[in-house]
């Protein structure tokens, strides 16, 4: 899939909600987090929502960077390595308790496992299985609706 700007944003929001949501729901109980289950879920879903919301701004930046590429494409590798800057930003905001809705401090190891697993799952689904239910998705710049 070669994205358009709206396609990028829609794909991110959709996959984070569906795939990221499922992964988060599954792994939260086994992450090294303290507190009652309700608070743990609150913490992981706040982090997930931050990746989605901040991601809209990141996508604007990626779209701008893509304009320097002749093919106006976004290679598979770029979709993977952008994990680093995005992860760092969300971690800094979470660590300083700036993210609204966080119930308390977020342990670094739990954040790392959660963030990387969600990212890898979303990236892998976007690079293949997404095309199975959504046959038009790749031909419309990644637009889901």
């Amino acid at each position, binding site marked *: *899939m*070669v*994205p*358009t*700007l709206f396609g990028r944003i829609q794909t991110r929001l959709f996959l984070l909600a569906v795939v990221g949501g499922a992964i988060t729901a599954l792994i939260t109980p086994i992450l090294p987090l303290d507190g009652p289950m309700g608070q743990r879920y609150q913490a992981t879903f706040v982090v997930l929502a931050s990746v989605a919301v901040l991601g809209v701004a990141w996508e604007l930046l990626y779209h701008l960077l893509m*304009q*320097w590429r*002749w*093919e*106006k*494409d976004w*290679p*598979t*590798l770029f979709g*993977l390595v952008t994990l680093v800057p995005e992860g760092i930003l969300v971690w800094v905001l979470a660590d300083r308790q700036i993210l609204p809705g966080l119930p308390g401090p977020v342990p670094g190891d739990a954040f790392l496992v959660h963030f990387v697993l969600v990212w890898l799952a979303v990236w892998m689904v976007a690079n*293949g*299985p997404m*095309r*199975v*239910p*959504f*046959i*038009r998705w*790749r*031909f*419309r*710049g990644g637009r889901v609706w």
Partner: protein
Amino acid sequence: MSKAPELATADLPPIVLPSTDELPPLLQDSDFWTDDMVAAAGIQVHDVPFVSIGGGMGSFVTVNYLRVAGGVPASDIKVLSNLSHPWQTYEYLTRVSQLSRRQRIRSDSQSRPDNLWGFPSYALQEALVKKSPKPLAQVLLEPVFADFYTPELDVVLKGIEREAGRIGYWDMLVQGEARLVRRRTGGGYYVLHAPRRPDGHNSGLIAFRARDVHIAVGYSGLRFLPDLQDFRARMNDYHHVVNAYEDHEHVYEALRRKPGRVVIRGGGIVTSAVLHRLIEDRRKYGLHTEIVHVFRTFYEGKHGPNQWWRRRGKHGFAYQGFNYPKSAWGGQLWSAMRRTEGDQRIKLYDLIGGTTTAWRRHWQEGLELARREGWYRTQSGQMAGLRLDGDQVVARVNVPNGSLDIAADYVIDCTGLDGDVAEHRILGDLLEHGGAGRNPMGRLDVERTFELRGSTNGMGMIYVSGAAAFGGYFPGVDTFLGLQIAAREIADDLARRGMARKMRPLRSISQWTKWVRNRRV
């Protein structure tokens, strides 16, 4: 898998074919045919809702989409073709232009004519079959740290053969020669067809009365530039000067017997394949072939109108992974092109157009060696004429300060295929009698849905995909993925008109699992 039957007219009643190919003048001259006119001419009529003319890759991809996504039964479709299998012309052209079944074509990992979803991609399939992560690593690293992954021709063709069996392609195929498409009074179309007789000849005429017609007849022929045509006409010589899309094996054989010089003309992917063959032969057999490469447009480096549009180039070539920038197949270029009309569209086509080849590491190594050892040199200029001088052919090349003559044993012209639509009997007839018009690039004017503008007739429509539709709202028409994009538009348009089903996520998953298990549609 079932093979194409000898005479693929299995479910048509046995017919006594008319003895003549001649159309009565009334039918020849009328833009619209009535049922009575056709009956009076004694032409047998067969009713079928959807006819696809061509029977090559374009027809295959389209009917595949209609069968799988549109849920159209095989009995509602006929494919009229002079080919015995959909990849026949494609395989011929790739073979003569120096691509064997074992080599890799210029196509993306997800561009699968045999699979609507592009999943598993060719790279994933290759990784699974070969039990190697290498193809996947290449996709991960392309195009920055590795060449674009491209599939082997053999894998592509075998996949199409498998899919053809799965969708009942051989039952839809009617071999012979489609002659004309005319609008029918009351709606729909007549498609006149000369079926293949048991002796292998196409003769006599029958007609298919169809609601919709799809046309994907490919290129009208090879593009012989005027100087080449002139040389052949004057000298009656088909030996020294060849088009790369013709069988020209004799050139390589002769070079193995005796050292010689070859002039190459062009800068596209076929040029790269021909150069690769010459370089490989030289290395393999210890030959002394010399190559002079003439570029009409010589690219020294990156080129383009501004910093946002800079294409890579070097040593004369313009480099690009595929025929168009990747975003033409569904990205922002696809989106931008859909909104253009007239001159604006021509400008955008000019920007992304031009002849390009792929930057592949092993090709670069070969050329680098050839340059270093001095047996490959480039010349910027326009070929002005060809003449024979004894056993040699002399190419005159116009350069900025005059002209120069290059004597060689052979000239291989790699400048491509001809897309002039009026040259094709059916397309030319549609321009004259079918209400069709030309787009800003001179080929057939189609809507975003690939409906042929001006040819709609009552409840019926004509769709055109492939090379004939180049210059429309979608640029990559003559590519695997482009054919699939067109097929998707056509299938969705049929669904909007109530003639097919629209494929939604659940049915898509169910059809995909059928594909995986190779279950018949």
